[in-house]
């Protein structure tokens, strides 16, 4: 197990290296740089100075080496577009906001999704099943943007139950100002509900057709006992495969929600940094998000072995 973890760790580092390299050269291949837009009306001397300041005057390979050296010690460099900001400062200031939104959305979405999935599988072929399936297709087809605005109009403007925009700050950053978080969380969680409900339902129906469910039935177990003891654990295996993707999405994918509800999260910075070729920010955020994703994948792999005894880790004791 320890051997496995160590080996995995080096594989993860290597993966990050590849991702960082690819991101760097892809960005370099795109025409224009972060300064082009700002230097049009400046004097030539100023422009040269600016390029020098950010090191953009150096040859490509040298810039690559400097960037990679920086990454190795956690120095991503200063932003070109958002003056005085670094990746660290953006994540420190905006990270918790996006993280809370992401976590709330994912927990609610995955939780409700799984429960609906179980209900749909157990009531297969009844109106309840059809209602859940129809609803989830509907929910997955409506873009966040439209859904968020709809919620704002109904619950914010007309019913006045929740504030239309904004986000708790200060001491409420993690555990307060719930009324602000309701609408953004709802907006985000529906796509999770829809995808997890359908995923678990399909997986459960597949498991229910297995022979060992017949064996369980032939033991005289009740329907619910069969679901709890035999179906659920076996049908969670495909669901697990989707989890890392969802975690990564809940960090990066909230950009639309953040902009509809004027939430000062870092989704905005990520998108803007790419469109303005803000190399240091893009590199930093990509590497950090990739790192989170890789760690989640690693944890999922460990969880697999807990759920499914057939999967054993090489280098372990058995």
């Amino acid at each position: 197990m320890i051997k496995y973890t160590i080996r995995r760790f080096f594989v993860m580092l290597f993966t990050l290296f590849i991702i960082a390299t690819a991101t760097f050269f892809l960005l370099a291949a795109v025409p224009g740089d972060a300064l082009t837009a700002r230097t049009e009306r400046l004097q030539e001397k100023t422009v040269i100075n600016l390029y020098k300041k950010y090191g953009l005057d150096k040859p490509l390979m040298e810039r690559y080496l400097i960037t990679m050296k920086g990454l190795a010690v956690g120095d991503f460099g200063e932003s070109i577009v958002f003056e005085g900001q670094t990746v660290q400062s953006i994540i420190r200031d905006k990270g918790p906001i996006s993280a809370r939104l992401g976590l709330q959305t994912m927990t609610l979405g995955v939780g409700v999704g799984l429960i609906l999935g179980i209900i749909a599988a157990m009531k297969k072929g009844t109106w309840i099943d059809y209602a859940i399936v129809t609803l989830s297709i509907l929910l997955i087809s409506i873009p966040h943007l439209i859904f968020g605005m709809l919620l704002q109009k109904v619950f914010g403007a007309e019913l006045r139950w929740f504030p239309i925009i904004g986000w708790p700050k200060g001491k409420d950053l993690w555990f307060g100002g719930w009324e602000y978080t309701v609408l953004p969380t709802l907006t985000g969680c529906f796509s999770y509900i829809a995808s997890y409900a359908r995923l678990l339902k399909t997986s459960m129906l597949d498991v229910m057709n297995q022979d060992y469910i017949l064996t369980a039935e032939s033991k005289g177990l009740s329907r619910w006992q069969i679901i709890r003891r035999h179906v659920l654990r076996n049908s969670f295996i495909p669901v697990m495969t989707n989890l890392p993707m969802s975690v990564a999405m809940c960090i990066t994918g909230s950009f639309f929600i953040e902009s509809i509800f004027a939430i000062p999260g870092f989704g905005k910075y990520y998108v803007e940094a790419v469109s303005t070729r803000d190399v240091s920010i893009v590199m930093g955020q990509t590497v950090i998000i990739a790192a989170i994703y890789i760690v989640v994948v690693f944890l999922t792999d460990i969880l697999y072995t807990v759920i499914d005894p057939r999967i054993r880790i090489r280098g372990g004791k058995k």
Partner: protein
Amino acid sequence: MSKLLEVKNLRVSYHTYAGEVQSVRGVTFDVEEGEAIAIVGESGCGKSVTAKSIMGLIKTPPGEIKAGSEILYRGENILNYDKKQMSHYRGGESAIIFQDALAALNPTMTVGKQIVENLMMHRKTIMVDGKEVKLTKRLAMQEAVKMLKMVGIPNAEQRAKQYPHEYSGGMRQRAMIAIAFACQPKLLIADEPTTALDVTIQAQIMDLIKDLQKQLNTSVILITHDLGVVANVAKRIVVMYSGNIVERGNARDIFYHPKHPYTCALLEAVPRLDLKNKQELASIEGTPPDLLAPPKGCPFSTRCKYCMEICCEQAPAATDFGDGHEAACWLHHPLAPKDDVPFKTEVRHE
């Protein structure tokens, strides 16, 4: 001996997109207490569906047990059981062993726990050192280990903590048998228990089932397509073809005096060791009829070497040869030709 199970006019259909598939079309047989019978037939003849019906495992929909069918267990129709009775009947009174033990065991549960699950479901108390005590999970696990020992699994204590994929094929089937016998059922259905195993293991598994059956006085319904497996175990044999019983009788009669062309063809298809090498293995030409639209005559008529005109028009009734030996074939009709047929067509005990 009294009758433990009586199946009367069992008809089972599956509703598919193509239409209604009549898998079992009026099957009647009975099993006496402590007796082993075999149901023999090729794939798709309805033998597994019959087995599942007896365990109450037919899913509706798509399956449907037709009105008029009766499955009497100790005189009570299990088709009318409520949930509680059914739960007691399955596992407590009857048990089933499936063909593919790897698929029939839960891959994410230890073998020990799968036996314990059955015990906890049906037994309230257990005998420990001659005293009856309340069954706890710990005691159930001890009992499960005992069961694994009984079916011949070495290192049962460690084995009970392992998962099915850590067992070999034969061991898995033994574990399956341990689960089935855990609550000492009165009726065991073995649905092709040895088909997925190689020949040496087959014999061991069949011996094990036979031993346990004698020891615990369990009735066994052995379902197989392999006549070689049957001979050693079953006293009586029922031959099924396309959802019907075509011939039944005690093992001796079926093997030495088959009275139905299908039984003869099946027997010819068993490879024989007493003939010289390089003999060609006989096979039955053609395929069984489509049960979406079963033929109105004898279902075997399209493949039968001795088919007559009447065979395609009308299904034959069973002819009785005494001693429970019956066959449904027109060749036994007094007007049928007597020459060039595979068996003596006269009624034997005349």
